[in-house]
């Protein structure tokens, strides 16, 4: 009896948590199609007017272009660096290795405001504040740990004999990296790319500090919010949310792809990549 009550409570609590997280997003989505200018109930009727208005606004288009221009290089750099860091951690033993791993994984644990402020003061000393570069660098710092963590999970599943087997068949360490380690990690590399792209695409706080006039979409949204309460914001929010969730979903599909096939041969299951993207979502 107690057990059943406990389980019931568990489900209710989980449900409540999801409601708490998703309700604002759902509200934003609903109101983005509402004909009324003000987000109030009852709903006035269906319209796509706000979307039309949004995507003809040159400032919004520019912000979207900039977000894409930033997020792709960020994803590429984060994935490459994340792989290098994960491989170092996997392959080598060196003094201060645990400190190295700690530093690599630290950024997501730092509150975004502190991170943004820190980045701003650092980048302005290097005369980079307000440049697109500033956003790119900051986002790599934030996104890299996600990439590293995902690739590290995949590497942990690799039979350590695999590299040795490759050496044993006359492949040099460099050839082994190219022909064995990278192909083994391929899916997690794609997943890391997509998820770091999503991290960059909807990151707000740090971008707000360092972007200056080079606003990304989330920063543009805040500027809108400061001026007016417009349903356009709901439209943008929904678009950003949809694209982020789309990237994350594909990323997770990749990192979990072949799971069934592998499960027979390899016992350790791959923890959901989504768990890594918890503190990152556009909160409007």
């Amino acid at each position, binding site marked *: 009896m107690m057990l059943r009550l406990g389980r019931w409570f568990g489900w209710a609590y989980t449900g409540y948590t999801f409601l708490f997280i998703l309700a604002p997003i759902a509200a934003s989505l609903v109101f983005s199609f509402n004909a009324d200018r003000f987000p109030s109930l009852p709903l006035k009727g269906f319209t796509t007017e706000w979307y039309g208005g949004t995507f003809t606004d040159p400032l919004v288009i520019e912000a979207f272009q900039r977000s894409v221009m930033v997020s792709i290089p960020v994803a590429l750099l984060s994935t490459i660096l994340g792989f290098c860091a994960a491989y170092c951690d996997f392959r080598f033993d060196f003094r201060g290795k645990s400190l190295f791993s700690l530093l690599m994984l630290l950024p997501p644990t730092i509150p975004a405001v502190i991170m943004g402020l820190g980045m701003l003061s650092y980048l302005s000393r290097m005369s980079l504040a307000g440049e697109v570069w500033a956003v790119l660098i900051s986002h790599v710092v934030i996104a890299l740990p996600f990439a590293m963590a995902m690739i590290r999970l995949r590497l942990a599943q690799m039979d350590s004999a695999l590299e*040795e087997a490759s*050496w044993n068949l006359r492949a040099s*360490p460099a050839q082994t990296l190219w*022909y064995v380690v990278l192909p*083994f990690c391929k899916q997690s590399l794609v997943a890391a790319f997509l998820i770091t792209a999503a991290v960059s695409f909807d990151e707000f706080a740090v971008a707000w500090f360092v972007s200056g006039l080079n606003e990304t979409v989330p920063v543009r949204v805040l500027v809108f919010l400061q001026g007016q309460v417009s349903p356009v914001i709901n439209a943008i929010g929904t678009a950003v949310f949809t694209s982020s969730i789309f990237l994350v979903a594909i990323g997770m599909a990749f990192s979990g792809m072949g799971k069934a096939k592998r499960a027979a041969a390899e016992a350790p299951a791959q923890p959901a990549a989504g768990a890594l993207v918890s503190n990152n979502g556009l909160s409007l």
Partner: protein
Amino acid sequence: MSEALVEIDRVSKRFGDYTAVTDTSFSIGEGEFLAIMGSSGCGKTTMLRMLAGLEEPSEGEIRLEGRSQKGLPPWRRDLPLVWQSLALFPFLSVLDNVGFGLKMRGVAKAERDRRSLAWLHKLELGEFASRNVMQLSGGQRQRVALARALVTEPKVLLLDEPLSALDAHLSVRMQALLRSLQRELGITFVYVTHSQTEAFSMADRVVIMSRGKVEQIGSPQAIYRHPANRFVAEFIGNVTILRGSVAEVGEQAVRLNTATGGMSVSRGNFAGSHGAQADFYVNADQIAIGDEPRHENHVRARFLSHKFIGNMVTLFLEVPGIEDDLKVILPERTYDCLGMQPGDSVVASWPAAAAHFFGGAA
């Protein structure tokens, strides 16, 4: 066995404070099937990894065809290894797995595929060439691993407990395959295993290792009949070790007084003198069981239990004054005819020729 192809010369290997292999020397002949056997942690796998260049000896050196392998990284050696975990590349097809070594040697794709396919056909895997290795059964993967190692036509093939993951039936079939392949190719196999059955059924010579040292090297027959020391005797487990004091050293046999009475043991090259304490062993399959003694050495014993091993039966007898059980191996039919029940009193007897001193066999 002709001249030495591989020489292991006073090799030691230490990992920090732990010594995995201590001052070990032996050589491996061309075309020989050598098994290195021992329980886990005896240093047999470390030995194999040193051969492959995956570990560097702390002392001593390994020579291949007279050339020192010192400092040569694994990717510059030609000693393919068949891994216990197989270590097949999961993202490659069967064909590409087999062709990997050739690709790394710069063999062109067409030639590579032709040679890989020839090996796959040879090992009855031709139809699986385009499959993913994960889609194969354990036995099939095993053969892919074998093909991958052999496709480059090495002079020496290293095998690290390759059959330990297979079920007994499959393991026996693979043993036959390995043995016939080795004969046919005429290359040297260095086979590491903890399984006596595998080592004894395939190898020309067996190296028995324990705690980083070689205990005995010899043909399976020699090791089985004449264990060099107490460790080997207990490891092989087909003898009973007894102890006595020398009463008389004769021409052919040595007379000893033991806790169960006087015993005659083959003299061999025994050098002890009157009154000395000596260990000796009695081969389990040369002991007769009955109501009356049939040979000069005999003890009265109580039948405890038995164990079937194929068509042979191992009996365990309790002998007053002896700590260990007396082991007797009989053909199953003979055992059946005796009609013994646990607890029965029987007479076990054996000739002097069935008992030997350690290391004393000529």
